[in-house]
């Protein structure tokens, strides 16, 4: 499987994503933001960071970068796109995912271990987890407060697009477990077709015990297995 990680000048989790994939046994390529094609790739990762400094609005400028035109085309053709943190912000800015990410309630940047409940293990990105499983993946953002209008929320729910919700240590989806004020404790969503995932937590930070846990591995393995299965089917 061929993985590309988009490197904006202010990305800062791109190497972490690269190293995480290497732990899983894959060797992604970096794609510079000024490139114009993602041809030949199976998965595009939009990593965390501050793409272009993000002084305006997180991700607001990144959507106009040369590479994003082709990422948008790739995504609309059904290609797999995985946005983490700033990557999620960019995906909402360019309309590939619904909703928006506002300044955290409480206004502070939050870097902290975080419990999540897997709300849907039916996606390409989460099929290694059990439905309702509680996993711990750190959050690290100043603008992760997910918001969406009533109609949009209803649509997310009806189409089973909510993938992760913030939870307490005992698995309750409750205000106490919500680090940023996100509506309905939403931490990650997919588009209707299920090929585009955006999430605020950082699974690439939890793929080795020595750096704090392995709960993020499931996502990498899920995507990998998806491609292995597809390969076996001769797609």
């Amino acid at each position, binding site marked *: 499987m061929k993985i590309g990680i988009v490197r904006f*000048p202010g*990305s800062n989790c791109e190497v972490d994503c690269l190293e995480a994939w290497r732990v899983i046994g894959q060797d992604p390529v970096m794609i510079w933001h000024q490139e114009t094609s993602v041809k030949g790739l199976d998965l595009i990762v939009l990593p965390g960071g*501050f793409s272009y400094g993000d002084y305006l609005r997180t991700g607001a400028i990144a959507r106009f970068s040369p590479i994003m035109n082709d990422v948008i085309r790739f995504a609309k053709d059904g290609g797999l796109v995985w946005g983490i943190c700033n990557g999620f912000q960019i995906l909402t800015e360019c309309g590939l995912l619904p909703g928006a990410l506002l300044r955290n309630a409480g206004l502070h940047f939050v*870097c902290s271990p975080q419990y999540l409940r897997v709300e849907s293990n039916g996606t390409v990105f989460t099929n290694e987890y059990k439905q309702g499983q509680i996993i711990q993946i750190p959050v690290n953002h*100043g603008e992760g407060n997910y918001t969406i209008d009533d109609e949009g929320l209803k649509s997310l729910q009806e189409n089973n697009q909510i993938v992760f919700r913030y939870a307490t240590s005992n698995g309750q989806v409750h205000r106490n477990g919500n680090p940023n004020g996100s509506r309905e404790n939403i931490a990650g969503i997919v588009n209707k077709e299920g090929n585009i995932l955006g999430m605020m937590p*950082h699974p690439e930070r939890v793929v080795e015990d020595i*750096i*704090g846990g392995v709960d993020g591995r499931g996502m990498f393995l899920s995507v990998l297995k998806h491609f292995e299965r597809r390969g076996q089917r001769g797609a």
Partner: protein
Amino acid sequence: MEPKVWREMGLNDEEYEKIKRLMAREPNFLEVGIFSVMWSEHCSYKTSKPILKKFPIEGPQVLQGPGEGAGIVDIGDDLAVVFKMESHNHPSAIEPYQGAATGVGGILRDVFSMGARPVAVLDALRFGPLEEGNNKLLLSGVVGGIGGYGNSIGIPTVGGDVYFHSSYSGNPLVNAMAVGILEHKHIAKAVATGVGNPVMVVGAKTGRDGIHGATFASVELTEESESKRSAVQVGDPFMEKLLMEACLELIQADIIVGIQDMGAAGLTCSSSEMADHGDSGIEMDLSLVPRRETGMTPYEIMLSESQERMLVVPKAGKEREVEEVFIRWGLEATVVGRVTDDGRLRLIEDGKIVADMPVKALTDEAPVYHRPTREPSYYQELKQVNLENVELKESAENVLLALLTNPTIANKEWVYRQYDHQVGTNTVVVPGGDAAVLRVRGTRKGIAMTTDCNSRFVYLDPYIGGALAVIEAAQNIVCVGAKPLAITDCLNFGNPEKPEIFWQFEQACAGISEACRILETPVTGGNVSLYNETPGRAIFPTPMIGMVGLLEDIGQVLGNQIGTEGEQIYIVGELEGEISGSEYLAVFENLEAGLLPELNLQAIKERLKFILKLNKPGLLQAAHDVTEGGLAVALAEMTAACGADISINSSSELKTLFGERLGRIIISVPKKHADAVESLAKADGIPLCYLGESKGINLRIKVNGRECLNIPLGKYRPLYEQTIRNIMDSENEE
């Protein structure tokens, strides 16, 4: 020229006469400006130099000692650790967010200009009490600024420390330390050599911000300081990220001779120092310097402290390659001059020479002052305060709870939660540990780092206190399983023109030197911040120590948390502490006094070696040093997952539970290793005292068979963990 001119720039009349002599003529306005910043305390160390010269700076591990942007220490495998600490106190007092942010930016540039990729930032912060004045706003702004800069550039903020004391009200301390990793072959230096080699300004454009920042840092803060807000720079972490990537690419491409950060005194300091190091001269045409404002005078261009700029001397003919690297990162690189062999700093504007002065006059000839020292009267008085009748004022339980909710001791999660401490995915011990630990990718090694200074000890006895700051840092490094390697320092003191202050400075440095000599942790660089005074009052002398250590095997990393029931808990070192200078005395008697226990550095060194010896074969579950608040507080800090049942015999409940004395470390030992630990201690002649074992969900302490404390974790942990959050979230938060 009117005396008013040089006096306002911070030069005294004798200094001005000396400049005239060195120039063999009257200097012009621009030249006086350049002299004034180069001869400021911040750039010249004119007051502190005679003292700093006495620091031990050599050791087999030292690849670069003081004098460059940062120190470099070998860690084997052709790798090295690059690190340095620097203050940004005065800017942070006036403009906390930007002051702290640019402090981080500046120290990072010091590290990557050496060719190292920064891997971590630590911040040592000191504020006045949160209930006083604007201290809450200062804490909030400083923490926001550190996070805002570090989080964006993508370098984890992994540690540091925070103290609160009334002496810092109005003059907070913001000391940032950066740590980087470097391959030996990529070491870069701040040097300009090779006649005719071009001189290039790279990175951000030059604006009017921060003019005379170095001079501003070298005077006391007064009510007029507010009007010098323009001397505070504004940071742009995105620009710095680009600059960092471009500079590292440049250094690795091996096309440059030298590179230096434009920090304090911007273009002036970087060009003079690079020429000084290269025994060369530099000629620059200021009309070529890219600016972001129109109508800037040569004076403003030379003294601007606009951030995110570097001065680079490429090899001749490589200008184009340098430009290409910077253009790829969306930055500018502009040739503004060339290296000469006449030993002069010559500045040209519109074809006219606007300044022409000997480089060595700016650097080597800077005045050196041997300031008088005088032992302050408080020193003997406070030593002699009789503490024999001090007794436990309340139940041990109440005292413990009061200490755990004292902001200096309370958990700092509110602070470090706002810092990205994991980006880079190398952080093995996150904030909250005794020291931070990062793995070194591609090796089995780990590096440990910490910042420490208990300034109350330094105030009571600067010599002992200075040594104790080093000891505490070494203890923290050892408690994560690492061997102490070397230190950087940030020496924060009051006005050195006052003999009592200078005495503190001299004594503290002597204590640091002695401890560094014994522990074999040489000083590799640092920074001096003097004039930390608000009207009528100096800060407690605060020589902050930043230390790095090495774990040969990251698998040997040690935590500070008791794991499960049945672990055997011991203290290495004396069971009893002293009341003098303790947190107990300050909180319950409102007294900061007493004679500090005599220092036995050799004995402490043996104990530290002993801890590492126990850890190597895996005999330890956890280790934690006993500092502010004493044994009871240290035990409370170690018990988040499991309680402990402690039973000790002692003549003084107060001294045993809440007395303080450095050189003491609590260890928690899996039961099966207890015998081995005890016999090793006996064989090595190390004082070891059994305290009890981990058990249940309470911290229970008996002294002489009487239960004096029995508190559930569920009671004290939340108080300890949420104190600062509760204070910061209450009422006047913006």
